[in-house]
């Protein structure tokens, strides 16, 4: 994951991460039960809402939002609750970083929303891992190494 050079790039890359997270949470939800399943389902709804907000922002800028990839690959098989939690935490950490970058390249209400979205993702990441970092999402490629688009789109 390279740092986006513009607001438009940041919006598109964050939207791509949201698409991947929605897909990835489908894998997560299939492996967990009880509270964790409800947490995964709630996260899917939150990410769908963020996705729609990002698409609306891109459209309002006169651009066409990117579409989801036809398929995604997980870097490791997700066959246990532990693997599912690790994937969820990695996806959320990656999104925290993406939103922090979007905050930097946007302004006013959009910057505020992005900074808050970074916080939401960091909180969700900690809910899956039980820990957090000094600078959530600072590892470039955290999302790319968890759920990737095999077509490169």
């Amino acid at each position, binding site marked *: 994951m390279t740092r986006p050079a513009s607001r438009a790039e940041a919006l598109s890359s964050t939207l791509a991460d949201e698409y991947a997270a929605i897909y990835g949470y489908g894998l997560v939800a299939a492996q967990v039960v009880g509270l964790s399943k409800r947490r995964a389902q709630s996260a899917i709804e939150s990410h769908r809402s963020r996705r729609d907000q990002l698409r609306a922002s891109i459209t309002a800028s006169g651009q066409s939002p990117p579409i989801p990839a036809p398929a995604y690959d997980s870097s490791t098989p997700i066959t246990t609750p532990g693997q599912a939690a690790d994937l969820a935490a990695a996806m959320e950490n990656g999104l925290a970083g993406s939103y922090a970058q979007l905050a930097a390249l946007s302004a006013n209400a959009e910057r505020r929303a992005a900074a808050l979205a970074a916080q939401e993702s960091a909180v969700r990441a900690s809910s899956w891992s*039980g820990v957090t970092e*000094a600078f*959530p999402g600072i590892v470039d490629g955290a999302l790319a190494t968890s759920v990737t688009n095999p077509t490169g789109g």
Partner: protein
Amino acid sequence: MGDDAVRSQRVATETALIAAYDRVIGAQTTGVDELRTFREHHLAHLKALDPANDPTPTASLAVTTSPTPQLAKDAAARAGLRTLETQAASSAVELCIFAGDVELVELLARIGASESAHAALLSGRGTPG
């Protein structure tokens, strides 16, 4: 508010948080490792904001005899830290609006994300399950 003022305000917040953790860690009997980790995060925040800053640890609170059970005191201390972390995370969002330098904005956003997660973990909401 310019970037220097934003940075100074945030340095003050991080310094106060480190002092708060120092006070609590000295009196805490449970969950100390987690609190030390969070304190280290704040130290990293401070160094990222101001590499020349080298805070001196404040004196820890002496453990005093009290009719209040220790576990209740621990819980109250964690609740106090949680409140400080929540306020700090909220403040980071506001400072993002005032900051001009993009790297400073991104740093503040990541710091706020860390502090928001600290607050969740201190409340128990971060417990996996």
